[in-house]
Structure formats: structure tokens, C-alpha cells
């Protein structure tokens, strides 16, 4: 299909052949029957939708239990968590080796 450069942006990207990302992408493409270039566009769109749905400052938990893997709703704001963890470092001291 002819490229419509007025409508779309086109990229040449490289992924290491031995990488986990490439392996997962290839498996995903085989499973869904969607070509890798098209799948790249779909998955990137998914990622931005997903990030928008949880908010930039939230944390998503993926819990694996039994036979299911289900994303849970955000548990705790990351900035608050970091702030409490930082206070905990002061309260509990440094690492076990200190």
C-alpha cells in the first residue's frame, strides 16, 4: 500500500533479535494474526490508553494467582509511596550491611 505521508508518520525501528520484547511481539503477532508493523502501532496505542486510564502518578498492580492474571485498579499513588518509603529509610536505618 502506498504511503500517505500527509496522513501518517512512518518510522524505521530496531529491536534486538534476542530481546524479550521482540520474542513477545513475535508471539503476539503469531497469536493474533496481525503483522508486526501493524501490531506495533496497536500496542503503542494500547499503552498510552492504559497509562492515561491509571494516571501518570499511579501504580498498577498485576496480580498473578491461580489461573488468572488480572490487572487491578491502582493501589497507591507512587509519589506518596516514595515519600513514605523515604521516611522509612530514615526510621529503619540503611541496608542490613550498613
Amino acid at each position, binding site marked *: 500500500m502506498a504511503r500517505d505521508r500527509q496522513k501518517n508518520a512512518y518510522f524505521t525501528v530496531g529491536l534486538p533479535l534476542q530481546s524479550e520484547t521482540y520474542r513477545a511481539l513475535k508471539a503476539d503477532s503469531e497469536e493474533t494474526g496481525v503483522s508486526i508493523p501493524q501490531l506495533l502501532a496497536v500496542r503503542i496505542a494500547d499503552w498510552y490508553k492504559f497509562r492515561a486510564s491509571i494516571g501518570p502518578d499511579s501504580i*498498577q*498492580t*498485576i496480580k*498473578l494467582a491461580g489461573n488468572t492474571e488480572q490487572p487491578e*485498579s491502582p493501589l*497507591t499513588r507512587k509519589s506518596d509511596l*516514595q515519600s*513514605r518509603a523515604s521516611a*522509612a*529509610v530514615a526510621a529503619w536505618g540503611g541496608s542490613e550491611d550498613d
Partner: protein
Amino acid sequence: MHPIYAYGHDFGNAETCGVLFDRGIQRAIAMPSATSLGRLYDLVQMRSALSESYAGNSPEALKRGEYVLEYNGNELFVGNLALKQSRTATTALGDISRYYSPRSLHLLLVASASIISQPEYQIDVVTGLPVETFASAEMRKKVKAALEGEHRFVLNGVRRLAIVRIMKVIMEGAGAVIAYGSAEDITQGCIDIGGRTTDLFVAEGQSPILHLCKGKEVGVETVADLLSNRFQARYQRPLKPGETREILHAHVNRRTYRPLSVNGRTIPEGEIRQSVENALASVGSDVASFVSTTWNTSETGAVGSDIGMIILVGGGAYYFADPMRARIPHLVIPQQPELANAIGYAALAEQLQQRVRSIA
């Protein structure tokens, strides 16, 4: 260079929870703290005979959430598989040395490897000890010695390497206050009801107030014991660990119980439900009176009224929320309370990693 993750390891009497931070996403797992001797080969042969055919040692015979660990020449079923497939599954309930036992390491390896896709990885770990045993420096050293090191193992037929570095051992309950407490310098507490113990933790900000931190041997497994004993008294056989676990999970999720049989007779569901409710009420009252005795500061009977925020966590939160709320109106119960400690441990591990990097 191996990928390095901050990891929280909560090795409970009944459940082991692991949380790791991976580029803004937490990955978490909860599994029964059960292991038993068992061979993948035997399991494959059995399943092959029952339905489909699998090659000799094919991990394809394993269902999702089933784990077979090979470590140091031993082969073990871990988690649900141990509970279902072995009569000798053990969680070493109540045995305090379990925190530095090989079982804790086995659960750490399986839990971390199941949420990390890379075959070789490093985890910087924070873990916890019950309030009553935390004060022992010897115990903390033993925990570190038992878990730390380079561990080569095979999980579900795949060779793995985990480099484990223990960053810190803190009190159980402290993790939950990191995960869900206030960032302000207020007095805040946590009630952590686990499988075998209930830990009470109170801190000023994040600094523990030791005289308000106490533990007691009572938890969800006490309900399971009561249930099994009463079942034996009435029907002349105890309940297996897998059966009590299924009944309690079904009860808390308001599902129908799986039928239980004794000598070919199916026990009516109503009878089991009544036993479960009685056992929960009895243990719930015990837990509530322990909290009241430890934190009661007012003559009116109000519990924890001088503690600005109280969080209820651990698997017991699903079972004992009502009796706790009746005494503590300002109680907060987070989503997935069983993961609370592990989330806080992982957050602390990440902060300690940053501190180590900034010093290096």
C-alpha cells in the same frame, strides 16, 4: 549484566506474597506457603494417563499457577500444587525457624521467578519478621544468611538464576504503613492478621513505637484448625488443608462450597456454613479482644482512638473486617490487603537501592 529489581518478600504462615517494581508497574503474586516433595516426571506420567499425552518431563503438563522447583538436587511441588497433589504438604505453620528455613528461600525463588520473565535476574529484597521476633539481631542475621546468594534452580523445566541481596529486614506491619499510611508525622497503626499470627504495629510517622507493637498467635489458620477439629468430632475425619482453604475462600467470596463427603455421604452445605460462621465468630472475637487489650487507652472502651490512622491488612482482613470495624470506626482496609506488606517492602527496597547508588 542482569536486570535488577526492588522486591518485597512477605513469607506468611499461610500465604507468600511477592511484589516487584518494574518500570512503574508493580507485579505481584500470592501463593500458598506450601511445599512438598514431588517430581515433575511423575505428575506428567499421571496426567498423560488421565487425558492428553505429554513427553517424558514436559512442563506443558503443568497448568497455570502450578510450580515445580528443582533446587540443590531436590524436586518440590510449590503452592497450590503442593496442597492438591501431596498428602505431606507442609507450611511449617507456627514454626518460628521457618523464616530462615530453606522453605522461605524456595518460596522466594518461585514467587520472584514467576513474575520475572528474564531467565537470570537480581532482586534486592526487603522482608519482614513478626513483631515478637524482630528484636532478635540473631534472627535477622539468620534470615539474611538463608536467603542471600546466587541461586541456580529449575522452575517448571526452565533453568533460572536468581541473585538475591537482602537490603533490610523490618517488622511485619511496617510494610503496610509504608504502602498505605500517612506521609504526615502522625501516629499510625496497622493490624496485620495473617495465617497464624496477628501483629499490631504502631509508628510515629514511620518510626515504630515499640510498646504498642505486639503479636499474638491467632489468625485465619486458627479458624481452619477449629473447623477441622469440629468436623472430625462430628464426622470422624479431619479436613485436609486444601479443603479448609477452599471452604474459607468460598465463604469469603460468597461462593457455593465444593461438596464434602464422608463415607459416601455428602455433608449438607448448611451444616458446613454454620460451622464456618461459628469458627469465624469465635476467632474474630479473640483477635478483637487482643487489639482492645493492647490499644485500649480510654475508659469508654474506644480502641486506638489516639492513633490517627489504623490500617487492617493481611489475608485475615477479608474474614475479620466486621468485628474490627465494630471496635475501630476509623479503620481503613486497602484493596488487596494481603499484598500490603510486600508492597511496602518493595517500596523500601527501591529507596535503599537509590541510597546505595547515590553513595557508590
